[in-house]
Structure formats: structure tokens, C-alpha cells
């Protein structure tokens, strides 16, 4: 069995859910070692151990949190030089993408991005990647070592299996030459009561909502159902709602119990972020919209009429 690394991205000192999803897959593929960098890395090692890491390489240098990509690239490259990995898994998240791309270029190995699955094959690794507008899946074989694969969030289910990881200090000096893109401030705009990624019910709106003034209709329904509101890129780009609400290829991946797509056509770049939802309901005035072909229930009609009626019905049901 090969040596599989999981780059365990931390968020404010906590292991991100995506890192734990990667752990679940990594366990099937080889001996798992995780790399945790920045504040909270040592504490994170315990969680990673419970998810199957045999070894967790840690370094709590503040540079990992304060500077984009380069310090982490240095650390991974240094570790790889000492004890090479066969496969390195990253989450397809904004921060990990930057690190993975740099690392691949530095090691001259290339990488496979946006994968939905990874498998061991003939001593190497093959990843499944959406291709041709998402209509097809390509099996991409990594020809170099290490294979670097960026996996979309929510591709696997995280599962704790118990265990304790050996914690090793990752020795690397981050010099000034890598402290260049300095994060000087963090601004949080998302004011969601329920986090989109964790919500049991997601109600997303698209251009068919007609305008930003109608989005409160979705908020009302979300409140009644205890869910969160999402959106398509079309309405985010139009400035109706913030990017934090965007679902899809360049936004968030969600996997709720119920996803209600309102006034959304169902472009592949949107559906790639929600098609793993258990139940999909679509409300669209066009019976031929692609979203109708993947919904468990498609309702053809005017969203602006149906949504308020639905909210009222949900409230009545709860009484």
C-alpha cells in the first residue's frame, strides 16, 4: 500500500469538514498521513487520528495563517523531499487550490483538479473528473509521483473510526521570501443563521426570482423549514446576493436532505454543487428546463406565487 497524504486544511484552528471527508477516502487507498499547518494544528491531530491518520505532521508557525499558499507549499515540498508520498489529496477549496497548484509546479508533477472520486489502479492512481460540460466523467490517470488530486467537497462521507495518530513536528523554516501575500484583515459578510453547507434543507434562487427584492420570499421559506438560502452564480454576479450564497462549481457544494431549486435552469456548473442532495424539488415556469430532468419533483409554475403559498402551508402544518 502506498503512502497517502491528506492536506488537512484548518479553519480557525479546526479541521475543516472537507479534510475529514478526504480522510475517509484516503483510508481506502493506503497508509494515511495528514499534514496540519498553522494555529491549532497539534489539537487537530487528535481529530485526524480518530479519522484514520497514522501520522500527523504538524507545524504551528503563524506564517501558515498569515501568508497565502507559499509557506504551506514550502512545508509540503520539504516533507516530500524527506519522505516522499505516493498520493496527495487536497480539497477543492480556495485556499487548498492555491497550495496544490504551486506544489505541483514546484515538484513538476501536474495534478488532477475537481475530482469526484479517486481509486488505486496498477500501482498508481486514477481520478474521476467531470468532463465535457459534466455530461461525461473522465478517468484521469496521474503519470507522475506523487499524484496530486484535488477533490470536490462533499464527495465522500466523513466517518470517525477511532484511533490515535503519532504527532510529528514538521521541521521547516519559512523564510521571508515566502512571506509575500500577507492577509492583513478578515471580513465576514455571511450572516446566515444556518450554515449553507450544513443545512438539512437548502432553498436556492436563480434568475427566475426576478430580482433581489424577491429573495426575502426564499428567506421566509427557509426560516419556516429551518433551512438556509443559496443562489446561482447568475444572481451572485448580478449583485442580488453575496458570493457566500453561491452553490456550484465555483461556489459551495451542498448535500442536504432536501434541495429546492427556485427559478434555476440547472446548468451543469450549478448542479455539480447540489446533485448529491437526497431529494431535489424544482420550481420553474419552463417544463423543459434541465433542472426538471434531475428533480424528484418538478413543479411548472410561477415561483413568485408558489413560494409564498408553500411557506404558508409549511407554517400551517407546523401548527
Amino acid at each position: 500500500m502506498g503512502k497517502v497524504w491528506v492536506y488537512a486544511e484548518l479553519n480557525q484552528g479546526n479541521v475543516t469538514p472537507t479534510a475529514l471527508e478526504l480522510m475517509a477516502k484516503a483510508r481506502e487507498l493506503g497508509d494515511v498521513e495528514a499534514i496540519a499547518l498553522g494555529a491549532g494544528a497539534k489539537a487537530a491531530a487528535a481529530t485526524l487520528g480518530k479519522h484514520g491518520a497514522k501520522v500527523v505532521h504538524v507545524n504551528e508557525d503563524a506564517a501558515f495563517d498569515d501568508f497565502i499558499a507559499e509557506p504551506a507549499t514550502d512545508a509540503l515540498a520539504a516533507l516530500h523531499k524527506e519522505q516522499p508520498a505516493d498520493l496527495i489529496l487536497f480539497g477543492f477549496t480556495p485556499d487548498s487550490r492555491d497550495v496544490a497548484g504551486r506544489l505541483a509546479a514546484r515538484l513538476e508533477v501536474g495534478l488532477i483538479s475537481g475530482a469526484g472520486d479517486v481509486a488505486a489502479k496498477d500501482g498508481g492512481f486514477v481520478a474521476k473528473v467531470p468532463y465535457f460540460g459534466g455530461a461525461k466523467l473522465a478517468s484521469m490517470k496521474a503519470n507522475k509521483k506523487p499524484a496530486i488530486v484535488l477533490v470536490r467537497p462533499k464527495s465522500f462521507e466523513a466517518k470517525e473510526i477511532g484511533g490515535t495518530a503519532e504527532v510529528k513536528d514538521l521541521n521547516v523554516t519559512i523564510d521571508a521570501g515566502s512571506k509575500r501575500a500577507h492577509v492583513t484583515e478578515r471580513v465576514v459578510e455571511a450572516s446566515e443563521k444556518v450554515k449553507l453547507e450544513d443545512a438539512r434543507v437548502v432553498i436556492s434562487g436563480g434568475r427566475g426570482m426576478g430580482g433581489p427584492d424577491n429573495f426575502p420570499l426564499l428567506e421566509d421559506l427557509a426560516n419556516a423549514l429551518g433551512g438556509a438560502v443559496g443562489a446561482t452564480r447568475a444572481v451572485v454576479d448580478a449583485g442580488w446576493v453575496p458570493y457566500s450564497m453561491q452553490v456550484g462549481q465555483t461556489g459551495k457544494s451542498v448535500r442536504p436532505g432536501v434541495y429546492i431549486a427556485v427559478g434555476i435552469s440547472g446548468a451543469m456548473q450549478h448542479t455539480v454543487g447540489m446533485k448529491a442532495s437526497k431529494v431535489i424539488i424544482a420550481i420553474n415556469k419552463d417544463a423543459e428546463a434541465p433542472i426538471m430532468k434531475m428533480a424528484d419533483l418538478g413543479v411548472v409554475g410561477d415561483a413568485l406565487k408558489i413560494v409564498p403559498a408553500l411557506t404558508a402551508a409549511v407554517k400551517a402544518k407546523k401548527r
Partner: protein
Amino acid sequence: MTSALKIVVTVKQVPDPNSNLTLEADNTLSREKEVVLDPGDECGVEEGLLLKEAHGGEVILVSMGPEKAKDAIRKGLSMGADRGVLITDPQLAGADALLTARALAAAIKPEAPDLVICGTESYDGSTGMVPPMLAELLGMPQVSFAKKVEIDGSTIKVHRQTPDGYQVVEASTPVLISVTAAIAEPRYASLKGIMAARSKEIKQIGLGDLGIEKGEPAETIEGLTEAETRKAGSVIEDDGTAVDRIIQLLVEAKVV
């Protein structure tokens, strides 16, 4: 403080988002049909032009693609960019992200720009991996997901979009940024701009000029399968019972 900026914008020609993609026999995407300048890169060109207008300097467009990709460069030139460089070589057909980044880096390095602007991800490749690779190969820091940029002397200040808001990131030039569509609304090329673009230089170079070897591909496509599609459920007209049907489904899913 303003000092003139040398700005490189990477621009890719992609299939027109409003037309259908086709697959070649070797599983590469056909780019020969209707093609346009990548809408994401159009935003990059716009931001480059805005910065040039504010600080003075030069905007150079660099693209890798077939000869036809000159059209994409020409589009950016008609918006106001100064000149273009096209890397074209039969060996580069179907190039992966690393080879693309290597070729772009080799073409950009001699320009010694203060700023390189890329799109976040291309419309057809969409791996978003060229920008970080390019930054590494150019030895520059990268600030991704840039939605607002200010430059003061050699200091650049970027609002970097994050999943729940944004970060303020500071760096010194030379630096590479990859921009989101929120950065700037691309301008229309004026008739004057279109006329002027005709006489602007587009330098064409090949792999040999860049002194790089193609090398073995970092990854290969072993096969294609149909993506798993969800089964269509029922589609109903909203005849007054639709809300009840939805409620029924919500009850079955145990969310009400």
C-alpha cells in the same frame, strides 16, 4: 504615488458559452467551432486597462492556443490593450495545466511585468490550476479570487473573496492575481478601438522559441463514461395541488 505599470493579462480562447461543445476523437474539446475570448479573462483585461488608466503603463495580452486564438487577443486589443503574444505550436494541442503554465511562464518572464492578471478558471478547462502554477514558475506570490485591487507604488492591496466574506491581502509587485467576475464589468470595444487594434502587434512564437520541451503529459485520460444522472421524477403543472405535493415530499423527507 503612481508609477507606470507593466501589466500582462493571460487570455484564453474558449468555445462560445452560447454554443454547443463537441468532442474530438482523441477526447480533447473542440475549440475550432465558435470561439470567443473567455468571459472571465475579459474581466481581467478590463481590470488591466483600468489600472493602466490610473497609473500609466502598458497592457500586454498573452495567450496559448491555435493560430485562431489571435482573434481572442485581437478582441482584447480592441478594448484597449497595447500588444499581444500568441504561443502556438502543434505540440501544444491538448496541453495540460502544467504544460500551459510552463509555456505561459516562458513567454511572460522576458517581459518582466509588475503585475500578471489571470482569470479564476477558464470556461472550458475550468481547473483553475494555471494561475497558481504560473505564479510558482514566475517566482511570484499569487492572490486568487481578487474582487477589488488597489495599487500604490509597489504595494498592491487586494480584496480576496472567501466563502464567507473577504480577506484584505497585501503584497509587493511583481505579483500575480487571479480575478473573479466581480472585479470589473468589461467595456465594449469602440469602433475606434476595433480599427486601432488592426495595426497592433501580435507576436507569434512556438515552443522552440521558448526553449521548452513538451515532456511526458502529467496525466492522461484513460476513458470516458457517461456521468451518473439522477432519474427524472415527476413533473407537474401548478394546477393548485402543487403545494400539497411538495408538502407531502417534505413530510416523507422528515423536514416538516
